[in-house]
């Protein structure tokens, strides 16, 4: 309504300006028709540049009529006697119209340039706003708020497909959830010029992550696409930051856990030391068989509790990646001998077959840690095979690695359990009651071997026995004695 009135006023003003010029040349400063025509062309160009095409056409027609009536003979009539004057009037009209058109086109282009520049500025502002958002959730909310504020539109909505969440400004209903979902799924933008609604998909790296809806939007398609891309990057960035923070928090909690467990282990071992000291002292000279039996139980249980504390602590260290093997060239045979010596007691009555070639190259390992792995495998073999059954310890080179195996002739491990026995706290179904253990030994062995860059595995035939093997790197440098 306002616009029509404004155009009407401008039309009248244009015609009035032409009338004024004619009046001035007619009554105040008389001049010939050429001067009048040139002045009018100047005025019409001004009108075209300032207001628009319609106004300049109106002025042109008024100008032609005025010129004809007041300056071209016969004066006082709307007729032209001299055909030359027809040409003059036609040239005037064509010049006025063409110049008007050119001027209007230039004006429109300038306006468009300003609009594009504004869009770019707004996108930039939005981009900055998105960069400041912390989490994905706040980023999504910021997207909606920033779009409304920056582009001065009545409403916007963001649909996060990954979390299936909608973030709306207060305009429920203008854009339906269904439409947003549809655009996110198909990846096709939905633009309704009549309702002034636009929905564009948010995609990054070919993957759709949601959609963005605008109400009262006058943005160009290019701007909409740029906006969608900006939002996609903003959300992705927020997601990455969130994941990084989470990973860092997880790592810190692992470190904290290891420190806490260290302190806990100290606090658990201190009372154990008093108990063990007191019990073993009494055990050295028991008064009768009953006392001997009870003290033996107390002593064994103190040992078991201690083992549990040690293993839990070790597992925590492995999980916090705080296990740092002190690697050096070591002979596997030396480690095997040391382990057998330490296990002398529990190996009594067993035939041990050693298949370690004298030519075996040195392994690049931490002696103590690998001794612990070997001890664990031996413990397992002893616990899970009948007393007196032979054990085979073998070692061989396999490419750049040395593979060490401990084979027993026990019952073997059911196929479905083979992949789980290296899991924390997992204990074989058939043995839970019979063998005292924590279920940590093998996962610790796995952690140690992996800290050396190696791997550990089992092959087992139920009824025949199991072979536990681990591979560790060969020592590559020069040996210096």
């Amino acid at each position: 309504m306002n616009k029509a009135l404004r155009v009407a006023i401008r039309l009248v003003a244009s015609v009035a300006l032409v009338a004024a010029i004619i009046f001035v040349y007619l009554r105040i400063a008389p001049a010939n028709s050429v001067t009048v025509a040139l002045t009018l062309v100047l005025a019409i160009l001004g009108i075209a540049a300032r207001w628009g095409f319609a106004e300049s056409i109106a002025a042109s027609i008024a100008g032609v009529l005025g010129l004809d009536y007041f300056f071209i003979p016969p004066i006082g009539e709307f007729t032209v006697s001299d055909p030359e004057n027809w040409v003059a009037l036609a040239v005037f009209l064509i010049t006025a119209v063409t110049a008007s058109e050119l001027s209007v086109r230039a004006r429109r282009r300038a306006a468009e340039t300003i609009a594009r520049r504004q869009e770019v500025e707004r996108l930039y502002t939005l981009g900055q706003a998105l960069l400041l958002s912390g989490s994905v959730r706040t980023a999504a909310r910021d997207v909606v708020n920033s779009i409304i504020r920056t582009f001065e539109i009545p409403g916007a909505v963001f649909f996060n497909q990954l979390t299936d969440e909608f973030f709306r400004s207060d305009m429920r209903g203008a854009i339906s959830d269904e439409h947003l979902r549809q655009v996110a799924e198909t990846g096709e933008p939905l633009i309704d010029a009549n309702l002034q609604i636009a929905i564009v998909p948010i995609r990054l790296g070919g993957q759709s992550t949601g959609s963005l809806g605008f109400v009262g939007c006058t943005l160009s398609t290019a701007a909409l696409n740029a906006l969608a891309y900006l939002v996609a990057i903003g959300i992705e960035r927020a997601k990455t930051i969130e994941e990084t923070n989470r990973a860092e928090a997880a790592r810190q909690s692992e470190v904290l856990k290891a420190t806490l467990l260290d302190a806990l282990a100290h606090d658990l071992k201190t009372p154990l030391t008093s108990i063990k000291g007191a019990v073993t002292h009494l055990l050295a000279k028991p008064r009768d068989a009953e006392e001997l039996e009870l003290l033996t139980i107390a002593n064994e249980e103190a040992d078991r509790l201690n083992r549990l504390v040690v293993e839990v602590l070790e597992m925590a260290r492995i999980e916090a990646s705080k296990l740092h093997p002190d690697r050096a060239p070591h002979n596997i045979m030396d480690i095997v001998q040391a382990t057998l010596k330490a296990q002398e007691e529990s190996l009594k009555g067993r035939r041990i077959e050693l298949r370690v070639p004298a030519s075996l190259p040195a392994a690049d390992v931490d002696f103590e840690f690998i001794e612990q792995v070997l001890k664990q495998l031996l413990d397992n073999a002893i616990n899970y095979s009948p007393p007196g059954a032979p054990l085979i310890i073998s070692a061989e080179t396999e490419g750049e690695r040395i593979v060490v195996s401990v084979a027993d002739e026990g019952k073997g491990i059911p196929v479905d359990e083979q992949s789980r026995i290296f899991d924390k706290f997992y204990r074989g179904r058939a043995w839970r009651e019979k063998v005292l253990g924590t279920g940590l030994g093998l996962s610790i062995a796995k952690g140690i071997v992996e800290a050396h860059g190696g791997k550990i595995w089992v092959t087992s035939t139920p009824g025949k026995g199991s072979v536990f093997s681990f591979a560790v790197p060969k020592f590559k440098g020069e040996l210096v004695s």
Partner: protein
Amino acid sequence: MSAKILVVDDEPQIRRMMRATLTSSGYQVDEAKTGEEALEKLRSYQPDLILLDLNMPGMGGLEACRTMREGSDVPIVILTVRNAEKEKVEALDAGADDYVSKPFGMQELLARIRAALRRAPGAAEGGPHSFASDDLEIDFEGRRVRVKDKSVRLTPKEFDLLRHLVAHGGKPVPHRELLQAVWGPDYGDETDYLRVFINHLRKKIEPDPSRPKYVLTEPWVGYRFAMPEGS
């Protein structure tokens, strides 16, 4: 007269248990709660042996051990809840004679105490009486050592190690034999003990510890004392 043992631990229950068991095993016992108190008691109580906890508030066990070693040869046995090779070597390096990880069986601890208290059979039992070269003099009876005319203090274990090596007059002595001769019959596999003590010994008596001329390593076998020509 029974040996006097100083128990250094910040945990009261452990001190109580140790006092009861050690007293009943025939030792005299006194206690210290901190490293600082232990240094004080070392002077006032004059113990024959110290059982030293590593993990104490304030002056820790390692520092206490080093400080004690500056002025005393008293045998020190470290007790600790940690059980890593690195800790063990650190403790021995700080001057401890032995290392027992908590929790321990009392019989084991008593064996370690006996080993730390015993002196290797002395010169009276057929060892050499003295050794002398241009820059090293050893008086085995007086347990005195002079390097380039300057008196050097060796701990009892270092001294016994040196005497045992010299007694073999240039022949290599296997690890196990050395360990059993110096620490006692229960020992034999603690080659890391030897490594640390031989290092200490070299630092004290060798003109150039990185290129030893007296205490030599026999790879895979043990150690040997090189007799200078003509002695």
